[in-house]
């Protein structure tokens, strides 16, 4: 399905098109990685709603990114339950090994590091969300293993893309 079709399907669930802005933005962000002005305007046009309504939401809700984020968005919870299980040590470690500060993106575009409010998974604190997945009961060794796995998926993906492109030189 195209982005337009997905948005139109979502919009059919509501009696008012304005309600479909949030789901449409989530669909658009999955498609584009983030939400630049041009995408916000496209969403407004597809739904036939005021552009300001779309801008209002994209800048209010924290899950919407109007700026690009890395391929892996590391979202470390630092709210109370995670703080009590030493999430600060994990943040310091991530900043060190990635060579970036909280809020930054690595120069290769692989990782963006953020702290987030409670992820609702305090039974496995300290917890971090990466893309769709939750990773809990974290310590420094598990963080390192996770970063290793994420880097490996990129290498695999790159390898698969190369294979799909056919042998070099042809």
């Amino acid at each position: 399905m195209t982005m337009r079709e997905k948005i139109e399907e979502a919009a059919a669930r509501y009696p008012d098109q304005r309600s479909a802005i949030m789901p449409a933005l989530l669909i658009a962000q999955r498609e584009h990685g983030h939400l630049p002005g041009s995408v916000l305007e496209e969403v407004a046009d597809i739904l036939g709603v005021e552009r300001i309504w779309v801008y209002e939401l994209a800048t209010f809700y924290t899950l919407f990114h109007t700026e690009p984020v890395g391929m892996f968005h590391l979202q470390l919870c630092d709210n109370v339950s995670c703080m009590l299980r030493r999430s600060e040590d994990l943040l310091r470690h991530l900043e060190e090994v990635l060579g970036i500060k909280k809020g930054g993106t690595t120069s290769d575009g692989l990782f963006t590091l953020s702290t987030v409010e409670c992820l609702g998974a305090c039974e496995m604190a300290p917890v971090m969300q990466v893309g769709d997945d939750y990773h809990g009961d974290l310590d420094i060794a598990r963080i390192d293993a996770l970063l290793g796995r994420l880097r490996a998926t990129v290498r695999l993906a790159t390898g698969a893309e190369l294979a799909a492109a056919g042998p070099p030189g042809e």
Partner: protein
Amino acid sequence: MFEPVLLSNVDVPDGHLLATYEAGGGYRALAKALREHTPDEIIDLVKKSNLRGRGGAGFPTGMKWSFVPKRAGKPKYLCCNADEGEPGTFKDRIIMERDPHQLIEGMAICAYAIGAETAYVYIRGEYTLAISRLEQAIAEAHAKGYLGTRIMGSDFSFVVHIHCGAGAYICGEETAMLDSLQGKRAQPRLKPPFPAVEGLYASPTVINNVETLACVPHIVVRGADWFRGIGPDKSPGPKLYCLSGQVRKPGLYELPMGIPLRELVEDCAGGPLPGRKLKAVIPGGVSAPLIPERGLDVGMDFDSLAAAGSMLGSAGVIVIDDSTCIVKVATRIIEFFHHESCGKCTPCREGLNWVVKVLRRVEAGRGAPGDMEQLEALCKGIFGNTFCALGDGAAMGLRAALAHFEDEFVTHIEERRCPFH
């Protein structure tokens, strides 16, 4: 030994699938409701059960349902509040991930009682597994005729849609959630009108928490007296408690309402970490004022905790031990509320900004004489003067920390350092 009710299906393999739910007696409550009861009888049954809302406010559920006008001339809506954002809370996520049909059945019975044909589940966007499980469960329920038109041969038709949130704590406030569902920034509405009369799209709307709705099928099958027989009569029922923080066995526990907080922390969750001592417990998510160790014999129900100066809230129980600085915890909590303030009203938006600045400098050893009075004055300016309960929760929590751990704040200011660093 208390037999789990809400979690009875949660640890069963494939508990999220319809076949598993049906094998455990699932959707018999809906069948019973449709065949044996009128909508008004269901409302009376829920009223008699004394079920109170599990989202935090503890409002009587049956009474809330009864406020929906019988003849509205407009469609009526049910909204399920699954925007579980209260720090320390994860019970609704686990129900939706592992037993989503329990919620769907509860929603269908509620919709039948209030005369709604459409429901929206407003669920946190971060909860990707819960979202996909719920989507799958809705599709399965449709295919089997538990949702859709003329359910089980009755005149009742009902559909459920999922609406994903996008990271705003304030959406847990019911009228902010309605504005968010209508495609606006989530900011609380002025009440009245209350949602039961004028809610989603200005239509009569009931908003219930996931756990509240999950209680409903059990009440229909086992009766109001059974439900009222569990825990205190005015605040009864099985209850999910989320244990987290500095405790040996964090996790989700189901026990009767009213169980002593100490039993929950020391027996169920195994007590403090090795070599540490309990210092304080936040009993109901960070909006609930903390309780120092000496107060832990309080019962975990709406009325007992209110009498003890705290609240049951979302039953997110956060355990704090003697290695932790209360000023640091208080600062982090106020930082959270400041971040999540929707910006609509001045006492919350500006007041919390100010409180954060004072707390940060006290924690960093740069506090000044008069900061304690300043913090109290700011709490006074916020409490009772905000549009919704967000500001009240922030002020109440800080006041409790200041009252119970005044010496820690004073030490920070006088010694110009954090004694825990």
